[in-house]
C-alpha cells in the first residue's frame, strides 16, 4: 500500500492551506484505488504504524481566543510524538459556529502539522451553511457529493463518515441560517433530533467494504459514537446499528470518535470504540452507567482552563492490536490505567 507522502499532500498546496493538503489525500491516487478496488488487506500484512487524532477545537471568531492556543499546543504535542505518527485524523468541530473565519483559523493552525491529515466534519462546522465552506476548505471536488472517504494505510482500511446529519427542523420553524446554527450549537438542543450518517453514506459504506476480505483491519472515524451512549446530547449516531451490521463480517473494527470531549470506551460485537478529549473544554460524564467505568478521565480543575483536554494517538501492531494513548495537557487528569494506554 502506498504511503501518503508529505510531498503528495503539499505538492498541491500553493495556498499553503490544510484544505489543499487534504485534497491531496483524496486525489484518486493508486493507493486509494487499490483500497476501493477490493484487494484484501489481511491483518498479517499490516506494517505497524502510529496515527494521531485531534478533535473539537471549537474555534471562535474572536482574536487571540484561548482555544486557538490550545489547538496550537495540541498540534505541537502530536508533532513531537516519537515516533512521528504517519498521519493525523481530525474528528470534527474545527469551528464553533461554522463561520468561515473560524474554519480558516483552524486550517491555518492545522497546516502546521508535520504529517498528512484526514478530516471529517462536526455539527459545529456544518449547520451555518450546511457544510459548504467546510467542504470547500477540507474536501476535494471529487468528494463533494458524499462526505465519506476511505483510505488504505499499511494494510489497514481507514473509513471516515459524516455522522452529524439531522432531519430538517429549521425550514418549518422559519429559522435563519444563523438561528439554525445557534440551535445546533447547544449540546442539549431539544428540537434538533438525533443525527446520523443517513442512507446515502450507508450505501457508500456497503460498496466501500463489499470486496474486502473479512480479515481486513478496519478503523472508522465519525464525529459521534457508533453506539447509544447518551442520545440526549447526541452522544450517538442514529444509524450506528446499521453501520455495525455492515461491518459485522470483519474480524475486528476500531471506531474512534470525537464529540464527547472525554475519555470513554465501549465494545459492541466486533467493534471497539474510543472517545477523544477535545482541545476546547471537557464535558461531564452523562448520567448513565458505563460498561467500562474504569476507562474515564479524572475530574478536571475548573481553575485550570487547560485541564481536561489534549490530543491522542493510536499505535497499530502487526496483528491489528491497537493501543490508544491519551496525551492530556495536565499530568494528573488521567488515572494510571488510562495514562498507560488503552488496548483497542
Amino acid at each position, binding site marked *: 500500500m502506498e504511503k501518503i507522502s508529505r510531498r503528495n499532500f503539499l505538492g498541491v498546496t500553493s495556498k499553503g492551506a490544510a484544505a489543499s493538503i487534504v485534497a491531496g489525500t483524496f486525489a484518486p491516487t493508486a493507493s486509494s484505488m487499490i483500497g476501493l478496488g477490493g484487494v484484501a488487506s489481511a491483518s498479517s500484512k499490516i506494517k505497524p504504524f502510529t496515527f494521531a487524532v485531534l478533535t473539537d477545537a471549537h474555534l471562535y471568531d*474572536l482574536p487571540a481566543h484561548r482555544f486557538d492556543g490550545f489547538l496550537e499546543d495540541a498540534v505541537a504535542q502530536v508533532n513531537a510524538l516519537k515516533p512521528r505518527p504517519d498521519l493525523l485524523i481530525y474528528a470534527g468541530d474545527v469551528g464553533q459556529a461554522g463561520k468561515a473565519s473560524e474554519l480558516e483559523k483552524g486550517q491555518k493552525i492545522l497546516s502546521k502539522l508535520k504529517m498528512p491529515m484526514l478530516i471529517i466534519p462536526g455539527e459545529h462546522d456544518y449547520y451555518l451553511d450546511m457544510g459548504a465552506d467546510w467542504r470547500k476548505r477540507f474536501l476535494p471536488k471529487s468528494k463533494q457529493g458524499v462526505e465519506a472517504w476511505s483510505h488504505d494505510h499499511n494494510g489497514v482500511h481507514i473509513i471516515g463518515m459524516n455522522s452529524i446529519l439531522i432531519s430538517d427542523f429549521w425550514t418549518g420553524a422559519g429559522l435563519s441560517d444563523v438561528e439554525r446554527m*445557534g440551535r445546533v450549537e*447547544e449540546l442539549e438542543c431539544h*428540537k434538533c433530533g438525533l443525527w446520523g450518517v443517513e442512507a446515502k453514506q450507508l450505501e457508500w459504506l456497503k460498496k466501500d467494504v463489499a470486496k474486502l476480505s473479512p480479515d481486513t483491519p478496519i478503523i472508522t472515524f465519525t464525529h459521534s459514537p457508533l453506539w447509544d451512549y447518551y442520545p440526549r446530547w447526541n452522544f450517538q449516531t442514529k444509524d450506528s446499528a446499521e453501520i455495525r451490521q455492515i461491518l459485522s463480517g470483519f474480524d475486528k473494527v476500531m471506531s474512534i470518535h470525537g464529540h464527547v470531549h472525554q475519555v470513554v470506551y465501549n465494545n459492541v460485537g466486533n467493534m471497539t470504540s474510543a472517545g477523544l478529549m477535545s482541545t476546547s*473544554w*471537557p464535558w461531564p460524564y452523562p*448520567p448513565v452507567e458505563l460498561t467500562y467505568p474504569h476507562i474515564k478521565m479524572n*475530574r478536571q*480543575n475548573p481553575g485550570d482552563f487547560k485541564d481536561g483536554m489534549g490530543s491522542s494517538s493510536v499505535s497499530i501492531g502487526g496483528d491489528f492490536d491497537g493501543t490508544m494513548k491519551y496525551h492530556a495537557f495536565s499530568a494528573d487528569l488521567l488515572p494510571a490505567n488510562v495514562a498507560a494506554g488503552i488496548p483497542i
Partner: protein
Amino acid sequence: MKNTMKSVALASVAAVALTAGSAFAAKPIVGAEAAEQFDALMATVATGDSIWHTPQGSNGLACANCHPDGSAIQPETFPKAHRTLGGRVVALRDMIQWCLQAVTAADGFDYASDEMIAMETYATYTNRGAVIDLGKDVQTGAVPVISGPGYPGTTH
C-alpha cells in the same frame, strides 16, 4: 427496658401530635396558590435557561458550554469550601459569579439581581431530586431532565 420503650413510644406520639398541630398552623399551599408558585418558578427557570445558554462575556462562552443540562454543578453540595475560590466556604452564587467572570470573561451579576436568581434557579431545578450533601466534592452528572414538549422554556 419495657418502660423505656413505652416512654419512647409516648414521646413519638407527642412529637407526631406536635407536628400535626403545627402543620395546621398555616394552610398547606395547594390549588391555585401552588399553581401560581409553580408557574413563577418555571418562568424563572426559563429565564435562567436562556441566560445559561447565552454568552455573557467577551470570549463567546456560555455556561452551557461546560455545563449542559446544568450538569457538573452539584448545587446540593453548596455551601462548601472551594479550592478554586481560595478554599473558603462559598455559596452556589459565588461559584456562578466566579464562572461568569473567570471562565466566560463577563462582568457577572449583582447577587440580588433577577439574572442571578434565575441562574441559581435553573441550576437547582436541573438538579432537583439530588440529596443535599453539603461539602461533597466529587464529580457526578446531572440528573436526567424532562425534555421535549412541555419542557420549560424550550426555545432550543
